[in-house]
């Protein structure tokens, strides 16, 4: 047994939780209006009381670590504080209880919010056009590549390859495949940047685009960005920027100014909308003017003082969401940008980058630092020194759990052995960082003196390490009803 039973185990025949509304009409018997062959005879849902349901999920919640519990330095995920005012504004009845198909005349506030948010994101990134329709970063990537392909097609060009550096998020190559493109991996140069010689050799007439992450997943700004953009454009290809790491650049550089053609933003990272235990996110797409005709539709447009949905466009890549994206998250991101303003956003980037560099400088005596240079919003350390002691990065991560800190992203980027990718974000204080540094140093000492402490970790969590091999070999992915149940 788990120490918290499944909701099904709290069920008792005839017990009930909430009551449905009082009847408004004489009941219609479903059997009178639907063929009996269409009606189900059994509905195997639990029957639990309201208090049992409440306690069950409350107790489950207690088994989670969260940003509001303690530091959560998960690299490339930007686990910053989620402002509580965002939750208030997103629950404004006029922004929550509205239907996607109500006439635009009755949804002017919603349309204005989307229009204005797109304009704010355009100002922040420097791109003239933004679509907030993609539901998450990966869907933004798909829209970006499809837009690029549509642009090539509009110039009567067929291109079938996409270049992706080997340091990229796994979503980039997966998106390439979903876009029907052959994915070509680019090796990273010794300084952590793009290898220009290799890029030149890879850029042929079949290359549609390069997808690069800026700053890269090594936490480094691409120092040769101007040369990269020039080479790619000279080959007739486009530059796609994975904007998962935009938090490092707010107010410090507008990616469009660098010559990038298209980028997506993860509103749930940079713009503070909560991660929700794995979503919902929101993945706005920002493009240069030549790609605007291809953005997903429908687009929100302004006509004088009113807002409307544009007529279908023959050039658009089409729709990627049932309506206009994860609107509730757009409300939160809009609230965040309006709360911070230009100075606040720049301060966020400054503190995010300062915090990461402070960790880099403070931990480089105890952990290997594969790329020893100023980093941006995250720093990638390596547990290679500890590996020689028989301790793996996984062990370091699990030991952090015992100290009440969420581990960083581990074994990623895949080009760094024993990688620990640490992103503190701007909302951790110096004291919080000092505590993290202290714990990481203690773990480094434990690796030397008592490695089994790390091998056995965690011991202070709701469960110890899990048997993932059996879970994969014999998947148990649902509660199987007992016979006669």
């Amino acid at each position, binding site marked *: 047994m788990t120490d918290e039973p499944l909701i*099904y185990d709290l069920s008792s025949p005839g017990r009930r939780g909430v009551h449905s509304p009082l009847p*408004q009409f004489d009941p219609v018997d479903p059997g009178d209006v639907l063929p009996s062959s269409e009606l189900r005879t059994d509905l195997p849902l639990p029957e639990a009381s309201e208090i049992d349901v409440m306690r069950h999920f409350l107790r489950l919640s207690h088994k989670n670590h969260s940003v509001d519990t303690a530091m959560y330095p998960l690299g490339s995920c930007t686990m910053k504080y989620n402002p509580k005012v965002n939750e208030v504004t997103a629950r404004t009845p006029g922004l929550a209880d509205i239907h996607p198909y109500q006439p635009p005349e*009755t949804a002017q506030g919603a349309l204005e919010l989307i229009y204005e948010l797109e304009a704010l994101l355009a100002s922040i990134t420097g791109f003239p056009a933004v679509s907030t329709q993609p539901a998450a970063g990966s869907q933004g990537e798909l829209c970006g590549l499809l837009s690029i392909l549509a642009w090539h097609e509009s110039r009567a060009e067929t291109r079938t390859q996409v270049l992706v550096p080997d340091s990229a998020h796994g979503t980039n190559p997966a998106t390439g495949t*979903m876009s029907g493109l052959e994915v070509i991996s680019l090796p990273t140069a010794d300084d952590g940047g793009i290898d220009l010689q290799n890029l030149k050799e890879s850029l042929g007439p079949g290359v549609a685009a390069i997808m690069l992450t800026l700053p890269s997943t090594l936490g480094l700004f691409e120092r040769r960005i101007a040369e990269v953009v020039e080479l790619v454009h000279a080959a007739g290809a486009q530059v796609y920027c994975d904007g998962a790491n935009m938090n490092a650049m707010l107010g410090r550089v507008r990616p469009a100014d660098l010559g990038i053609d298209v980028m997506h933003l993860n509103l749930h990272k940079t713009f503070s909308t909560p991660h*929700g235990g794995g979503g919902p996110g929101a993945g706005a797409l920002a493009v240069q003017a030549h790609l605007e005709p291809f953005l997903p539709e429908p687009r929100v447009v302004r006509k004088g003082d009113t807002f409307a949905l544009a007529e279908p466009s023959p050039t658009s890549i089409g729709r990627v969401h*049932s309506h206009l994206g994860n*609107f509730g998250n757009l409300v939160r991101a809009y609230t965040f940008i309006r709360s911070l303003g230009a100075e606040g956003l720049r301060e966020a980037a400054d503190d995010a980058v300062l915090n990461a560099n402070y960790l880099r400088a403070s931990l480089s005596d105890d952990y290997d630092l594969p790329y020893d240079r*100023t980093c941006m919003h995250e720093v990638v350390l390596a547990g290679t020194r500890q590996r020689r002691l028989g301790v793996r990065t996984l062990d370091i991560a699990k030991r952090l759990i015992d100290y009440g800190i969420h581990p960083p992203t581990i074994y990623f980027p895949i080009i760094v052995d024993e990688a620990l990718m640490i992103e503190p974000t701007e909302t951790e204080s110096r004291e919080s960082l000092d505590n993290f540094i202290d714990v990481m140093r203690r773990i480094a000492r434990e690796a030397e003196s008592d490695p089994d402490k790390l091998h056995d970790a965690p011991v202070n969590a709701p469960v110890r390490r899990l048997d993932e091999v*059996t879970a994969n070999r014999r998947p148990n992915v649902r509660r199987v009803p007992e016979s006669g149940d």
Partner: protein
Amino acid sequence: MSYAPNTDADRAAMLRTVGVESIDDLFVDIPVQHRDPTLDLPPALPETDVIRHLGQLGALNATSDDLPSFLGAGFYRHFVPALVDQQLLRSEWYTAYTPYQPEMAQGTLQAMYEFQSLVCDLTGMEVSNASLYDGASALAEAILLCRGLTRRPRVVIAETVHPAYRDVATTYTSALDVDLQVVPAASRDGSSVRPNIESLVEAIDDQTSCVVIQRPDFLGMVVDTDPIVQAARRHGARVVVVVGDPVSLGLLVPPGDLGADIVVGELRSLAGPPAYGGPGAGMFAVKSQLIRRVPGRIAGRTVDLDGKDAFVLTLQTREQHIRRERATSNITTNQALVTLGATISLSALGRRGLREIAEQSLTAAHHAAEALAGAGAVIATDAPYFNEFAVHAPEGAAARLDRLRRDGNVLAGVDLSCVSPRFDDLILVAATELTTASDVEALAAAWARSR
């Protein structure tokens, strides 16, 4: 203001540790001519002011309290128990992320496992993932799964599948070798509309990878799917069923029992109000032989070192962070918090509650139809329906809807020209357990006045 706690004294001390003079020195890798742009943004607003500003934007929108609403078409206003949002506001849920470190995320993982179990029980399927973005992208992913499985190019999709879902499927497959064939699965006879199964059955051939149908269909009709499933079986095609409204599963035979290979749908209505269409939660459930082709996260049950039951993300070699360009999909973040809401809602409603709100939805829709007929409307739907039906508007749906709103103060439904120009004289009217008798009176009175 940036929610950043560092003081200037903290920053100065930290810069000394880093060994640089100023924060500017940390940004020297950026090309100098592009450094430090001026952002053209409105001034920062304190909490009180930003709440007021957003309240003003909200006041420009009509809610269901302002105008009686019969809008459905894939987005339904259902009863969501009060405890759901109390839970969703718990930091432990909403400020956590994907459970990469299972020892610190047993809450999220067990809730995912319970969600997957509930979806299987509702749909009659054997495996559910932990969600996709929305119903539309879930359908697109189902089509991609069938393409990879069968290596066949054709997809037969009923016109009575949600038009936005069809559009998203078109976008997702636009760069791939997929031929989406939309088949007229409803036919007109004067003012009425009825199912046309034969056209679907005839369209399925040996090059068909899957046939996609919706249940109840986009027009609200509950159609006998057996001939379609039989035809698919004969030709080796898979059957994808889109669930129109998850509450209908409280009453209708689950798609798994009808022979579906994949079931997709939109679960938003179980977790909260429509929120202008998002965030939703895409349901994705399959028969067990397809488990290793499923896109997105799946939670599995296992044990820890001490033999204690526990939960973990499983079969991750399907996913992009391991498999990269050979992954089943590029999805990473899904809609975990919305599915948590749906899980809690289904738990609190339970067996009886879900059935009751399904019956009340059906009841309200049939009373709305009767009231409209009493007001002189012609009910176009000539088939059994669940909680949605079509009404005939001879002068055109758009014009009638506009008058009903302006003169009658009701949002009477959705213009069905979004399905096909053949339906531009039909209005789709939806009702749920939240539809009141006075809403229905207002609808009938408005109709009578607008004639």
